């Protein structure tokens, strides 16, 4: 005889990853740093963006990079050249980073520096337009890149990442004169699936748009760590950003 039972779990399928992501985020909050998860299809310009932003911001913020792109040993060296520590993350054969991999990267990072001294932690995800959006790593903000060479239909064909993003950067806009695409159409399609995110057109080659992008960054940093004489006040309860909840799953 068996007694048939049914348990109602109502658990997120990705609960295991979610728990680790929340654990990572608790660390980030305790260290009072802002963690960004930078995602795009392969070659949309994540590393180029980082290269330019790190060089421009190195004087203003203490930063580090967790690099999920295994093909960028050279890129890592370029990024390190501006004095920003870059820690490679071992992804195995995975097509995205997950929270456990980022936790492993954090361990390596902590051997090199005290993360409490950082303002900004960049995570460059694996180039993939599909699944990184489903695997939180503990980030406060998701930044998605879409290059103008990918065509204006991508936000509609691969909507989840653009829906989840807090900021979408339309990259490589220096190439617009040579392409049969219109910036307005790309932007409109992003807005169709995510009406309220920031959409910022940029070129890592010319630097166009970076002022607006860095302004957005500064606003996020201000939201997580309001400027205050922190030495005099006890550590506040880690401020949780009004981050968008991953939708009900």
């Amino acid at each position: 005889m068996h007694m048939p039972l049914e348990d109602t779990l109502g658990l997120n399928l990705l609960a295991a990853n979610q728990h680790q992501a929340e654990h990572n985020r608790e660390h980030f909050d305790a260290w009072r740093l802002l963690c960004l998860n930078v995602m795009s299809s392969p070659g949309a310009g994540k590393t180029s963006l980082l290269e330019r932003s790190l060089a421009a911001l190195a004087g203003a913020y203490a930063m580090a990079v967790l690099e999920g792109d295994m093909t960028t040993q050279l890129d890592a060296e370029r990024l390190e050249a501006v004095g920003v520590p870059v820690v490679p993350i071992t992804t195995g054969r995975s097509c995205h980073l997950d929270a456990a991999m980022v936790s492993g990267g954090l361990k390596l990072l902590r051997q090199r520096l005290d993360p409490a001294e950082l303002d900004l932690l960049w995570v460059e995800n694996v180039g993939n337009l599909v699944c990184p959006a489903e695997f939180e790593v503990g980030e406060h903000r998701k930044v998605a890149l879409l290059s103008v060479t990918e065509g204006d239909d991508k936000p509609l064909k691969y909507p989840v990442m653009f829906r989840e993003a807090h900021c979408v950067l339309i990259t490589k806009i220096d190439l617009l004169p040579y392409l049969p695409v219109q910036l307005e159409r790309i932007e409109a399609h992003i807005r169709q699936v995510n009406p309220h995110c920031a959409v910022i057109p940029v070129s890592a080659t010319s630097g166009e748009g970076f002022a607006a992008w860095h302004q957005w960054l500064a606003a996020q940093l201000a939201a997580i760590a309001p400027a205050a004489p922190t030495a005099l006040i006890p550590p506040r309860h880690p401020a949780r950003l009004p981050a968008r909840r991953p939708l009900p799953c």
Partner: protein
Amino acid sequence: MHEVDMTRCLLLSMNAWKQQHEPRIPRVSRVHLQVGSFTCVEPDQLVFTWRVAVQNTWLDGAELVIEPVPLVGRCVRCNATYSPDPEQAYRSPCCQHPMEEIVSGRELRIRSVDYAFSDHPADALPAATPA
């Protein structure tokens, strides 16, 4: 294939659930999932990777049953619900509004588990019963 990673996450959740029943071992016949269509999951792929992953584990033979959940949006102008269509750029047919509110379609949920405890004493009782 991210379905492999999803399956791994699912197995971790199932293992945690099994521990709640220790020392008894539940015999699972079915695991019911809800998978929204506005996710990055291919249900067929997930079922396939599940079948491979549970072989020779305590979940061997357990069937993964996936209930697809359609994408439903709510037009924030007129409050009507609608089925966002990529061909129509996900806009609401009533007011041509962008897809602002999602009512369903993002689910990745373990809804329930069908299982039983064998009444065989070896299964039903703790391994070492105090006298």
